């Protein structure tokens, strides 16, 4: 193996056939390209369903999936638990979206009572809710991250344990707010935001990459910012306006 490929950042797309329902490949593409454009060697590693998940990945991406594929993915992820732990101990980051978010928690309880075991990487449980939450989502995370935009489409409701921290406060969810979204842990993000989430939020992509490679040089993101501006405005103008008014009134 050459020195260059030894040092290449390995972005792992886990089970794309099972956990790729909502363009989840996009998150992997964005991480790889944002490294390459800065001169880092990076490689997209697809872990096909049925294959063991290796311990040598630098980023583990668990995406969204439908019910049956989620059961299959759960089995594969749990049988690779030791390798994932070794990867995490070695400094790897995790981005888990939707079904993937549910699967890094302890369990998912389906509407018919079926229990799907998760990895238990984080202290969270998910139960099927009374309806699907579908629509644009705007989330305010802790600094230095900017407001995040995404599209949610899920039936599960995830409850975090007392020691876990949400990714951010929901500013707009179909016009409603007041809730929290996702989870942020040590080199780990869980979220219900599709879009996919990283093309819409390049700062979040760089945040994850900085966990793996340290400080990053600036990168022009004009196109992404135009998309963000459109979606923050169109999808959730009301929620953002409310957030802005609160900000202004808080400043007095």
């Amino acid at each position, binding site marked *: 193996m050459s020195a260059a490929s030894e040092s290449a950042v390995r972005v792992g797309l886990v089970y794309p056939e*099972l956990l790729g*329902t*909502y363009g989840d*490949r*996009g998150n992997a593409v964005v991480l790889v390209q944002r490294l390459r454009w800065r001169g880092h060697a990076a490689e997209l590693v697809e872990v096909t369903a049925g294959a063991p998940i290796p311990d040598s990945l630098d980023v583990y991406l668990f995406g969204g999936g439908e*019910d049956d*594929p989620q059961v299959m993915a759960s089995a594969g992820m749990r049988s690779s638990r030791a390798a994932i732990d070794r990867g995490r101990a070695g400094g790897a980051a995790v981005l888990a979206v939707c079904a993937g978010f549910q699967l890094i928690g302890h369990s998912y309880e389906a509407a018919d009572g079926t229990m799907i075991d998760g990895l238990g990487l984080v202290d969270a449980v998910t139960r099927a809710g009374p309806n699907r939450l579908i629509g644009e989502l705007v989330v305010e995370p802790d600094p230095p991250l900017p407001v995040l935009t995404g599209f949610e489409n899920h039936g599960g409701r995830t409850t975090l344990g007392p020691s876990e921290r949400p990714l951010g406060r929901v500013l707009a969810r179909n016009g409603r707010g007041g809730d929290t979204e996702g989870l942020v842990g040590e080199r780990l993000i869980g979220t219900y935001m599709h879009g996919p989430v990283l093309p819409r939020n390049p700062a979040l992509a760089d945040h994850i990459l900085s966990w793996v490679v340290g400080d990053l040089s600036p990168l022009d993101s004009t*196109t992404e910012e135009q998309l963000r501006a459109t979606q923050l405005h169109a999808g959730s103008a009301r929620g953002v306006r409310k957030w802005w008014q609160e900000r202004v009134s808080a400043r007095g």
Partner: protein
Amino acid sequence: MSRRSLRTSIAIAGGRAAGWLSRVTGRGEGATISGRVINAIAPDALEQLAAGQRVALVSATNGKTTTTRLLAAAVARTGEPVVSNATGANLTSGIAPILATARAPGLAVLEVDERVLPRVVDPLGAELLVLGNLSRDQLDRYGEVHAVGDLWRHTAETHPDLRVVANASDPHVVWAATPAKTTWVDLGLGWRNDAATCPNCAALLTWSADRFDCPSCGFGQPATPNRLDGDTLVLDGTRVPLRLALPGRWNLANAALAVTAATTHFGVDPHDAADAATTITTVAGRYMTVALPDGRHARVLLAKNPAGWSEVLHHLSVPPPAGRNCSVVIAVNARVADGKDPSWLWDVPYELLRGQPVAAAGERAYDVAVRLRYAEVDHIVEPDPLAAAAELPGDDVNIVASYTQFSAIYRRFG
């Protein structure tokens, strides 16, 4: 006709009036509103209108409008009168006004929305289903692919006499059509990304070059003497060349399905059926051309979901230098009829267009632009698809449009 009740006749008249209003006010084609009025006034209108018609229903995620058009042209060779919903209005509201135009007993070839199909088989007294493919489409509206396959299968199980002509290469379709009296056609494996797991037992399917199988429960691609071989349909040993005016591999698959249905169910000579298919050049605006201000023409293609986009892009991607003459406008909206979540853009191999002139267009032009940036495809951003087409160079300009973008262009120029 005498078997129509007064109520149904009034409903049809009311429906026609509403349809006329819709057309003259420029709100739409008129078929859907007309049907809503008919259904509201006479809920049993479908039964009455379908009486005396031999009804074939065509459904699929992609290609149902084109397959319907090809099948209608092929069965017209029987000499029987044929009615068909040529505009793509495929809900019960779109079907009723079409049936109301039938003047005599004959054949009705009807495109039906995937979700609506199970509900209209009984009222229409359908004798044949033509089932093309099932893939992910508008997840925020339709839900999961497996659920649609299960709906279809229930219809097949509860209608043992129903005849079906179906694609043997699509696991969801095979799962749905297996309980019926099915004539299979092997259309070749195309998009497989939405069929990772077995519809029967949820194990991982295995895919070889020419078939799929479930290693766990034995579910797999059914054997059939009918298959698409390049641009030739092999129908139980008979080779039927398909010389289509319509572009792309996906239309060969649509035609193979239509010719098989016309031949095996309606007794049309397969070469006659294939000949009828060659006469179709545009289908409800698909593949129509639009004049650009500088005298060039742009061709308009509809792509609704990752499977459809993937087929179209493979067709339009031409390696440079020849590719520099083939321009592509990618026009995407994310309204209800498009699916409100355009994340599927990341499942489409836009990388194929590297080196060709490309424009990001539509209400979601910036979603497209970000996708193209990460695919390293040079592009311009211009929300208006026709302005975008005019800005791109070359003699072969193609506008590939999502559903509502396509409809807007069709309304303006169709």
